[in-house]
């Protein structure tokens, strides 16, 4: 059985999906289901006192999804820590997608702040899955701090650019001893397949599905793409060559002399 272990969770699906930006709860439900994901990310936000609604959380719990709360929207260590603790209080589980953002324009992580927050949260018992740049040094530091996985971005959040630097990702994969999950930047199915073919252990995405014209169909595409990429990785692809190699035998063609 080809399963992924993160902390003490064992997963058959390597696709992690977000729940933001869907048209409505019905579309959210249909897309998540079509994606086959077992782990689903959510954000922690103030209850809108005017129209409080816990429908999303209730649904995910009822359907037994593994909820992965994030600290999206946090731009400093303090807010990040408080948001993380609120998430744990709400859910009773220590799983956390750590994000400490650098600015709104790029939504790239703030590297020193992410490291600082990771250090504290690991000590507090969180199972930390940090969103990070594709910098191999930062990835290693996060691993050394005790993070349960590292989650380098493929490209800016919501950009749809795909894996912009496979070289850095390959260095991270070569060196990591924890799972490497590509987080952010996937645009279409082949992007997810490429990540898995490189040996990534999973892919996390939200906008690529929720922002597609048909999110439910795209969710299905992503499920198949992640599975295809993983199977291709395990199956061992053919080497790349400049010249051709025949697939049909060249001998035995009619008219040839023996």
């Amino acid at each position, binding site marked *: 059985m080809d399963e992924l272990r993160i902390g003490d969770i064992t997963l058959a699906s390597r696709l992690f*999906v*977000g*729940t*933001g*930006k*869907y048209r409505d709860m019905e579309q*959210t439900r249909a897309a998540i289901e079509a994606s086959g994901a077992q782990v689903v*990310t*959510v*954000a*922690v*936000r*103030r*209850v809108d*006192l005017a129209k*409080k609604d*816990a429908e*999303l*959380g*209730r649904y*995910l*719990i009822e359907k037994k999804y593994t*909820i992965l*709360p*994030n600290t*999206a929207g946090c731009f400093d260590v303090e807010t990040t820590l*408080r*948001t993380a*603790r*609120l*998430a744990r*209080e*709400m859910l009773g589980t220590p799983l956390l997608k750590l994000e400490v953002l650098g600015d709104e324009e790029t939504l790239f992580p703030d590297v020193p702040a992410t490291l600082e927050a990771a250090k504290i949260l690991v000590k507090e018992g969180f199972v930390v899955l940090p969103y990070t740049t594709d910098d191999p040094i930062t990835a290693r530091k996060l691993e050394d701090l005790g993070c349960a996985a590292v989650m380098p971005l493929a490209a800016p*959040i919501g950009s749809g650019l795909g894996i912009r630097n496979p070289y850095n990702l390959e260095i991270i994969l070569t060196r990591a001893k924890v799972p490497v999950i590509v987080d952010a930047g996937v645009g279409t199915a082949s992007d997810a397949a490429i990540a898995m073919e490189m040996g990534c252990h999973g892919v*996390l*995405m*939200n*906008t690529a599905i*929720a922002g597609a014209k048909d999110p439910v169909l795209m969710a299905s595409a992503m499920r198949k793409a992640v599975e295809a990429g993983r199977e291709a990785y395990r199956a061992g692809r053919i080497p790349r060559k400049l010249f051709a190699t025949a697939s049909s035998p060249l001998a035995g063609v009619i008219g040839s002399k023996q």
Partner: protein
Amino acid sequence: MQLEVNGEPKEIEAGATVRALLTSIGLGETLVAVERNGIIVPRKDHATTPLADGDRLEVVHFVGGG
């Protein structure tokens, strides 16, 4: 007494607990979490934690996010 809840002023009777606050807002206790003056109030303590005038509270839940 006067509280700040999620950045907005809120009036509540003196001596109210966290649970009372949640009830007054119309929230149950599942799927929300409460922070009082920067410190988590565990769910089991909601009923026994009195609020004080000037308390800053954060009441959060899950929303769609990625």
